[in-house]
């Protein structure tokens, strides 16, 4: 019995793992155990900019506060999505 349960668990874990991988490839920004703070932040910022681009009144709001044309604000937002939180930190050598 015990052995069977173990195998089941392993199978399930494997299954969850593959499901996660599927999610991670399908939905950008799905986290994993090794997500760094920088990755998470970058992803949050990109999501936010993407959302502002889509919501017309948030775009209006930004355009008014910055006193720039809406086209310029849109352009700047996509530009900022390249690297919204600066370059990634050095990866520690394993």
């Amino acid at each position: 019995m015990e052995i069977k349960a173990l195998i089941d668990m392993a199978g399930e874990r494997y299954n969850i793992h593959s499901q996660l991988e599927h999610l991670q490839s399908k939905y950008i920004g799905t986290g994993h155990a090794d997500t760094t703070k920088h990755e998470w932040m970058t992803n949050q910022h990109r999501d936010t900019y993407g959302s502002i681009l889509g919501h017309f009144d948030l775009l209006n709001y930004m355009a008014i506060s910055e006193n720039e044309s809406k086209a310029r604000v849109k352009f700047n937002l996509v530009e900022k999505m390249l690297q919204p939180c600066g370059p990634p930190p050095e990866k520690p050598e394993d």
Partner: protein
Amino acid sequence: MLVLEWSLEEAGVMSGTALTRTPHGGQPSLSAMHLYNLTLQRATGITHAIHGNFSGSKLQEIVVSRGKILEILRPDPNTGKVITLLSVEVFGIIRSLMAFRLTGGAKDYIVMGSDSGRIVILEYIPSKNVFEKVHQETYGKSGCRRIVPGQYLAIDPKGRAVMIGAVEKQKLVYILNRDAQARLTISSPLEAHKSNTLVYHLVGVDVGFENPMFACLEMDYEEADSDPTGAGAQNTKQTLTFYELDLGLNHVVRKYSEPLDEHANFLITVPGGNDGPSGVLICSENYITYKNLGEQPDIRCPIPRRRNDLDDPERGMIFVCSAAHKTKSMFFFLAQTEQGDIFKITLEIDEDMVTEIKLKYFDTVPVATSMCVLKTGFLFVGSEFGNHYLYQIAHLGDDDDEPEFSSAMPLEEGDTFFFAPRVLRNLVLVDEMDSLSPITSCQVADLANEDTPQLYMLCGRGPRSSMRVLRHGLEVSEMAVSELPGNPNAVWTVKRRADDEFDSYIIVSFVNATLVLSIGETVEEVTDSGFLGTTPTLSCSTLGEDALVQIYPDGIRHIRADKRVNEWKAPGKRSIFRCAVNQRQVVIALTGGELVYFEMDPTGQLNEYTDRREMPADVVSMSLGSVPTGEQRSRFLAVGLADNTVRIISLDPSDCLSPLSMQALPALPESLCIAEMGASEDTQQGTIYLNIGLENGVLLRTVLDPVTGDLADTRTRYLGSRPVKLFRIKMQGGEAVLAMSSRSWMSYYFQNRFHLTPLSYEILEYAAGFSSEQCPEGVVAISTNTLRILAMEKLGAIFNQMSFNLEYTPKKFAVHSETGHLLIIETDHNAYTEETKSQRRIQMAEEMKDAAGPDEQELAQEMADAFLHEDLPDSNFGAPKAGPGMWASIVRIMDPVEGKTYFFYRFPQNEAAMSLAYVKFATQGEFQHFVLVGVAKDLQLAPRTAGQNYIYTFKINADCTELDFIHKTVVEEVPYAMCPFQGKVLVGVGKTLRLYDYGKKKLLKKSENKHLPNLIVHIVTSGARIYVSDVQESVHFIKFRRSDNQLIVFADETNPRWVTTSCVLDYDTVAVADKFGNVAVLRLPPNTSDNVDEDPSGTKALWDRGLLSGASNKLEVLCNFHVGEIVLSLQKSTLIPGGNESLVYTTLSGSIGILVPFTSHEDHDFFQHLEMHMRSENTPLSGRDHLSFRSYYFPVRNVIDGDLCEQFNSMDPAKQRSIGEDLDRTPNEVAKKLEDIRTHFAF
């Protein structure tokens, strides 16, 4: 203590679900707040505009998106006036819009990309005046997500495929085709994804009939993400990628990708196939580049800059939008820069190769989001903010002295061309469409003392901003006013021939005479018309083909075309008392109540019907409907009698003059009018309505059954204090009714809805329709001794507005209570003050002189002088952009009734006015009033840092025409919010709430609380309670304990809300609006406020660790609703005299709406069911689920969407019936309910 009670238990009708408390800590009573959302005026800003032949006729229409509203407009090719054909709320966010046409088709379809995760193809059906969903294909999750397509749309110019793209990664291609029945078909999607890739823009490339191709501006961020040195991001290039749809293989391939030198923001398709060289124009910062596949070398031309521009020299220049025009022989593009300058772009082509790009300065118009060039030679400009325009393109700028810039002209790298902006030369303004967007602040008040309150709002941005005063009413334009020799009683217009387009005569009746005026170039008196001039006239009309009829007290005069006159004399001593007449029939009532009926026979003879009919009481009023086309007569006569009844009498030959039906009335029927309304352009029959104007000022509108003559479904509306007189006029091809009481009203059917709107005009006494060449659909009216010709052009508009210009973006205003003057602060980022601007000009003029050589001195001097005296208004040409961190602000005193500015105080450069309070300090006596302005110096927007911050104190003089600067107080953070409070002032200094009192040298700090989370953005008060809104942490309830001089936070909320504004509804309840377009009502749970008030030391609340790391009490959410546009003002007020209170909100996109409480359970129940049925039977056009849209950020709670419910009126009659059956009501009863709740609170 001031206690404002808004909850419903006061009305004593709602009881049930949730708990609320009565003021003063009494027993909690059972109640919940249920609100009904109604839009009074829809959003006016435009986010997208496309043009095409959407109705399938020769005329071109424009389809615009106003954020969540889809609207179809038609510019009249003759007059140039833009008419709205249809406007539909789609309950989703329209993110992209495209028109397309299948090869060989004559009708354009609309593709819409929205936040629904679905692609929707719509068709406009002109006969029903609706948008019909042809296809709706689901591809992803809903919401504006970065990898779900919807943001971009591209169409193959031959209409064979559409690509829909997301901001990142995903792109889908759908193939469009026809089936055997020539219906549009859509394929399953083909993927063209590329991960880690951002998309700037997407267009279809015109490749003729080869495989459809799409061009895409992309940027791959993968490398930048993995390079810790930052060099990866520096070196990331934008690429232009072509995607080809292989129609044979049913597959999309990434055909070709090329890195670009500079980052571009959008693409323009160049005509291909037989019409041009194909390829794309890439609009990037400072440059425009032509690119195509194959041998074609890149052609690149700098974007010309304004000569001697005051802009920040570091700034680049981009194009913001473009429009293309193509005929068989040529094509050109109009592209607009950020400054509003339009360039005409043409391409030189040599053997299918582009050799040169030519740019020519065309004209300058306000910066647009979209432009459309129509085939009729109009340019439609949908402005970013403020009013929209329609221009006539008078010249193409082909042969003038304006210099043409070309890519072939040699220039050094980094150099550019210069041009001089000037007033319009090629464009002529033909129509202006009002837009309130953005509304930054609004207050409802009756400052002009007019009984009905006005809406005062701050609108617009930068130099195009304005203070607007909105009044309920239809704008009336006065075409002509002429004085008459006496006071006339009545006026009519007649045509000489029935098929004439315009009216020929105006007939004016006096007490003892009749005046006939002929309409031509001028309006002048004539005597040869055949009308009897020596008697007053009762009525007149065109009769049959070409005859006229005049009814006067002693008889009827029938004037034939050849001026033969037939007279019918009234018998004996009786005279004609009342009459009704139409194109073929005349009915008169003789004194004593006898009816005599005449009808025209086929020979044109007017024959009396053999019988007469005695009425049971005196006839007070009569009306005949128009003769329906193709019929001999109108079958019904409506007669109003002195016994307070109205009777319908048949005129059918089989039962002529027999009574059909009767309705009892509450008062004497002063006037009657039968009108057919609700007919659409085509064959569709309208409904016949009998309008009854009562002596007591009430208007009744009743449906007249076209078969039986029964009267049903009566709607009532009080119009004014005087008896109501009614007149039938023509409006937009249909019939409308003018009703005159102490105010004039117009009742008309427009866009599937009845409108009953007062005219914003002085009292009128009598009116008739009027049609001439200058004024095809007007009204001629009399008022005392004048004759006026009026036109009502802005049908459908509920408000009529007055607009007064301001200088910078207005932020906030306060009303000076004694004089009604407004104190306004205006602040612009990225701007120069007047002083800096003139300094910069002088400096540049000096540089010009210095740069010139010794022999050019004179010329340089001349140029410098010309430059200094150049005066191009900022409102058209845009204010110079000074760069980030540069601010300009003023505080102004304005009289909103006259629009006069009494005074302004200009703050020095880089001081930004952020908040304003109008304060009466208790220590300074009752008669000294102050205005406080919170100012940030050298403020940077992101991240927010400020050099220094002040509170300016000004003293207002007694008649509020001047401000006297007293002192400024330094504070350590930006003062974003201020509010007067118990003779002192509360200031939100960053995240500190502080109480200040007046001091001689500066304001004196009295008390403070540092426990607010981030940044205080709004403060409102009620009694000793203070409601403070945080920039992202919702509302905090604060109690001021005077005895201990403490500000104690005793309640907050668990939901994050990025509050923009708030409003106190009652002592325990506030309404808040947030940056994501939500409105919520929050209330303190029962019994809590007592604890705070009674806690003797206050220490418990002060030192309490609180709940969930916040205050000890949590607010309950009573209502939640997603408006869909950012709400920037909330106010509790009554909009109509005698009406109930409602919560009025205005949004950034320019809409005005109200939330109203239900007054009975029955109503609430009814609307809840109606909403439920509407959700399932009337799914939104965007493909978004209505419930999930209204629950965008928070689940919708206790708010019923009236905008959805009102779409009931535009549904298919069969569906209306089926919903009606489920609700146990007829469709008319449902419509009446909808109308009632609207008129109860607003208009």
